[in-house]
């Protein structure tokens, strides 16, 4: 392993290509931890945003006018404002209003960490889009199918969970995939509130080692790899959920 690191040190001396994330132990450790922070952030936000999408789309079809309006307001707020502004708003704006707990130094500390704020704000952002995506799927389910389900004795919730949602999910998968890919890329904005994900770590490293072109290239490839994994996984889901016979 030492010879491997040595080679990258030699590469720096010989060509000026400085990959400290390979040969410098401190930088290597923080980049590995940055990678896993990004992965964790992506997984949690994807899961939460899908839950928000499903629940939101269900509430959107509610018979209660104010529930529908509430969902509409939520979508408008989170879809029509930039995600970076949302993150700053949550962390610096809302964060100041929350209750605090005293830390070991006797300083009142906000209850939510920057990581938790990033999860909340990114999930809500992607969730707002997911509500609309699921709605598009739900509206594409033939009315006759829903009526058939109701004729079989399903309640509104029962028909939604057992008939409408499974079909709707299949219909909206391509749009959902797009949004998930977008979400993975948007996690880079969490750097702005000091969540130590890959972009944050890269910025620290290129500030220390002034190897901006190298780190930019690395970042590009790392996200290409990460999003590639997501796309591959989603393609498998699409294949697994194929519904033969109705063109899906």
């Amino acid at each position, binding site marked *: 392993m030492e010879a491997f690191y040595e080679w990258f040190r030699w590469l720096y001396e010989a060509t000026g290509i400085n990959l400290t994330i390979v040969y410098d132990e401190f930088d290597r450790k923080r980049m590995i931890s940055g990678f896993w922070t990004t992965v964790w952030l992506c997984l949690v936000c994807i899961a939460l945003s899908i839950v928000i999408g499903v629940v939101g789309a269900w509430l959107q079809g509610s018979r209660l006018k104010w529930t529908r309006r509430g969902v509409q307001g939520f979508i408008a707020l989170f879809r029509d404002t930039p995600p970076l502004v949302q993150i700053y708003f949550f962390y610096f704006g809302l964060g100041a209003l929350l209750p605090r707990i005293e830390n070991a130094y006797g300083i009142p500390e906000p209850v939510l960490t*920057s990581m938790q704020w990033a999860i909340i704000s990114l999930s809500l952002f992607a969730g707002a889009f997911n509500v609309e995506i699921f709605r598009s799927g739900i509206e594409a389910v033939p009315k006759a199918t829903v009526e058939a389900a109701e004729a079989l004795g399903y309640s509104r919730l029962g028909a939604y969970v057992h008939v409408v949602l499974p079909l709707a999910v299949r219909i909206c998968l391509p749009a959902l995939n797009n949004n998930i890919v977008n979400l993975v890329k948007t996690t880079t904005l969490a750097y702005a509130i000091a969540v130590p994900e890959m972009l944050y770590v890269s910025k620290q490293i290129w500030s220390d080692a002034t190897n901006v072109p190298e780190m930019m290239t690395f970042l590009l490839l790392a996200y290409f790899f990460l999003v590639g994994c997501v796309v591959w996984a989603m393609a498998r889901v699409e294949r697994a959920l194929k519904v033969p016979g109705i063109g899906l």
Partner: protein
Amino acid sequence: MRRSILAFSMLAAAAALPGAAAADVLDKIKERGTLVVGVKTDYRPFGFRDPSGAIIGIEPDMAAEVAKKLGVKLELVSVVSANRMEFLRQGKIDLMIATMSDKPERRKVVQVIEPLYYSDAVNVLLSDKVKVTKWEQLKGAKLCGTTGAFYNKDVATQYGPEIISFDGSEKPLIALKQGNCIGYLYDQTFIAGKMLEDDWKTAYHMPLPGIMETPWAMAVAPGEDRFAKLMSDMTKDWMKSGAIVAMEKKWGVKPTEYSERMFKEHKGS
């Protein structure tokens, strides 16, 4: 297809040779009639904005003197630690006077002007509730910091605090006020400047000795030897005339040991 391959390889070549300055920047400045200088705007009193939004401070004053000497107009560009060297290499600015500490790895990227015009140490602005006398006592503590500061890594590895860093110096200060960290790790002169403000002097203090004293460097793009020579002569003139000490006084900073020493050394020359 062939054309796109050519275009791509030219792009790749351009990316591989950043900072290979071709034309002489002094000629370009004269031709343009404007000197473009990168300065900080979040670093009172070295570079900040007045209520009208204009950039003022010690470093803008220095930039103005350079423009006067060259007989051109001055344009100030706001830079932050994380982008200032890139701006210089890409020709977005001609000259950088942006509180940049002189470091060997930076000298590989930009051309540093000697003699170094200023010097500063690293310190931490702490909440009054934090009673410490040694840097070692900050092990494991959360400190806010600024992305791009060279000492973030050194302080983290030597003394072990967890550094949460943000762009610029306003956001880490807000984060400190909100209790996201117990202190702000930054340049000592900046912290001393902050502690003159009512907002900070009551509940915050600077109990630790300054560490890692490092000189600050102005810089030009690599290969701009004529401009570098001119700047070097100007710096010597400033030291000879005591201009830097005078600027410190004008902007309310207690003259640093370094600038007074430089004044003394060059006065007779």
